[in-house]
């Protein structure tokens, strides 16, 4: 609250200055030379950075990106996809010490490693240590490195899916809104149908189909599923764009565009679309969170990328094994926190952008 008042004060001073400028104007200097006019985008940026939550969100997103894309460069294990040790019992014994038993037979002291207590799997599940901040998993991978590498796939998928959805949504929503009549009717009925289809069950069925068609072992299964996610996920954007265009179409500037004889393409893409961009940016930012959540959900249900691949969803999948859930939270809590942070940050930024774009918000 205090901060806002502080900002409000200079604005008043500016107003006073502007007034005096107006008087000066008589002496040959124009008003525009004295006052600084912010472009619409600069105003939006200024408003955006004034909100604490938006800045926190932005910083978190930058952190997650650095963590995923730059982080692995500092990890000694990243080259092998996070693999620390091979599944070779001799190496395991070398790296991790089994509990030693000491006993005396005929006065001679013996010490032996107790291999009975710890099965190899158990040993490879190393706890948190200096060289492995989040420990290692049952296949001998460094969890922190996997988390970074997983972020690469999860974040990239989020962006690609959202961009594809937006492109489809803008084109179809734009067509529906601009041409109206039967085009509008046809596209909007498709939108109605697609938005009635429950997403998660469809993804489940698709996963079964792809797995049974022999795609189960490769990451391309996840990519195909994401294409299908785009194919049913564009409806929200289309509705938004159509609604905006319906109202914009009737406004005076469109009449002017028509009167100056512009082509349809230039009317749509040069005059209508720029007015939809603010809403699109907001919906894309909010959409990013939901795509990341969808990938994670699929991974958790073991329906997304094949098990060996590092994605955030696959990492949190370990929590569904009760042994890991109960005794090795270090394996999955990191992934959960990353997913939550990503969704939270994108929501913060999306909300901040929405407020910043809203001309009704005065501050």
């Amino acid at each position, binding site marked *: *609250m205090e901060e*806002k008042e502080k900002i409000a004060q200079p604005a008043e001073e500016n107003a006073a200055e502007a007034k005096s400028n107006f008087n000066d104007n008589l002496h040959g200097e124009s008003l525009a030379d004295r006052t600084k006019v912010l472009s619409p985008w600069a105003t939006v940026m200024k408003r955006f950075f004034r909100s604490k*939550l938006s800045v926190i969100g932005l910083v978190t997103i930058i952190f997650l990106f650095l963590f995923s894309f730059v982080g692995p460069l500092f990890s000694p294990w990243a080259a092998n996809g996070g693999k620390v040790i091979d599944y070779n019992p001799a190496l395991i014994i070398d790296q991790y010490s089994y509990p030693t038993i000491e006993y005396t037979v005929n006065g001679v002291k013996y010490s032996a490693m107790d291999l009975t207590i710890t099965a190899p799997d158990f040993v490879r599940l190393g706890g948190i240590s200096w060289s492995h901040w989040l420990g290692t998993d049952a296949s001998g991978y460094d969890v922190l490195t996997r988390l970074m590498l997983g972020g690469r796939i999860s974040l990239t998928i989020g962006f690609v899916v959202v961009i594809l959805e937006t492109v489809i949504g803008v084109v179809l929503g734009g067509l529906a809104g601009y041409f109206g009549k039967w085009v509008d009717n046809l596209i909007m*009925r*498709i939108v*109605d*149908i697609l*938005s*009635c*289809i*429950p997403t*998660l*069950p*469809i993804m*489940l*069925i*698709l996963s*079964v*189909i792809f797995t*049974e*068609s022999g795609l189960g072992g490769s990451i391309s299964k996840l990519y195909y599923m994401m294409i299908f996610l785009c194919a049913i996920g564009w409806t929200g954007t289309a509705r938004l764009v159509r609604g905006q265009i319906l109202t914009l179409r009737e406004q005076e500037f469109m009449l002017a565009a028509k009167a100056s004889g512009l082509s349809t393409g230039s009317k749509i893409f040069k005059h209508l679309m720029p007015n939809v961009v603010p809403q699109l940016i907001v919906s894309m930012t909010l959409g990013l*969170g939901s795509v990341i*959540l969808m990938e*994670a*959900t699929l991974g*958790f*249900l073991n329906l997304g990328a094949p098990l060996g691949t590092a994605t955030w969803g696959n990492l*949190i999948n370990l*929590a*569904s094994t*009760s042994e890991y*859930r*109960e005794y090795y*939270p270090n394996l*999955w*809590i990191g992934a*959960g926190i990353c*997913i*939550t*942070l990503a*969704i*939270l940050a994108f*929501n*913060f930024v999306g*909300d901040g952008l929405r407020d910043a774009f809203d001309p009704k918000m005065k501050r």
Partner: protein
Amino acid sequence: MVKYIIKRLLLSILILFGVSVILYVLLRFMPSNFIEDQYMISHAQGGASEEQMKADLQLILAEYGLDDDSFWGIVKGYFMWLGKFLQGDMGESFKYGKSVQAVIGQYMWLSFGISFVALILEMIIAIPLGIKCAVNQYGKLDYVATVLCMVGIAFPSFFLGNLFIKWFAVDLGWFPVQGMTTEVITEVIDGEAVITVSSFFNYIFDYIRCLILPMSVMVILSIGGLMRYTRTNTLEVLNADYIRTARAKGLSEGKVVYKHVFRNTMIPLVTQLSFTLPSLFGGAMITEQIFSLPGIGQIAYNGMLAGDIFLAMGYNMFIAVLTVIGVLFADIMYAVVDPRVKLVG
């Protein structure tokens, strides 16, 4: 209004037709040998020889129009399914060995019970909180509640569910990890099972104890959305002219908020609640999965993984029908609670 509703109903039928076509085609893309394998697995306990079973399966597949994978075969199969669906017969669930409507009817009520109680809890907490935050906009409570709500919205259900299991069920041992009650409602007295007062209450308490964790996960996840929605709407109402009038004529702040603001805030909320219809009856697939609750969500999940075509078809159509009804209901409710809104057909 009647004209509008009739028009919308006809449109809904068109939408549902489209949804069913897409679903059916997609399900038929499942490799048929997979369905056969799954059928063999689920019917393997009988003493029949493999040939006998294969022959049986072919008969069953033919009866349901699943035997022909060509284009016309799929079209024929779809209309066979549609004909039965319109007569109220959703086919047989291979996995559960019952008709699909029986499976849905049996497992739906647990999901409904959990979602319903969770929804009531959400409303009790979120609506007053949302109004309070809006009245003290930019206050401390507003800030804290908004941030907490955003965190709640951002939590994936599987992460929160597993954290709760780890903390409250495993580490603290307050609740059972998974599944439903282990107690029986009866008590054995003199070799006979009788329902006594104590055994009855034991059963009920244990039942509730099993449901507390999944329910709190559901409440935490969706409370944020409702609270933010209430807050935004209250803010809008607070800026309205009639609120200024109410203040100007000297009403106490309490009266302004609880009589004038509150009632008008309820208008969009009533419509918003109509949209929860699918999730109310359709079950929470992931939450039920994590806590091993035998609700319709988990049953459908397992059915779909096992290639149970008719259960998948039936469940998804069930959700689609609920979605369509929810949207229609929201529009009608909007006109009912707000006399300014007129539905024009």
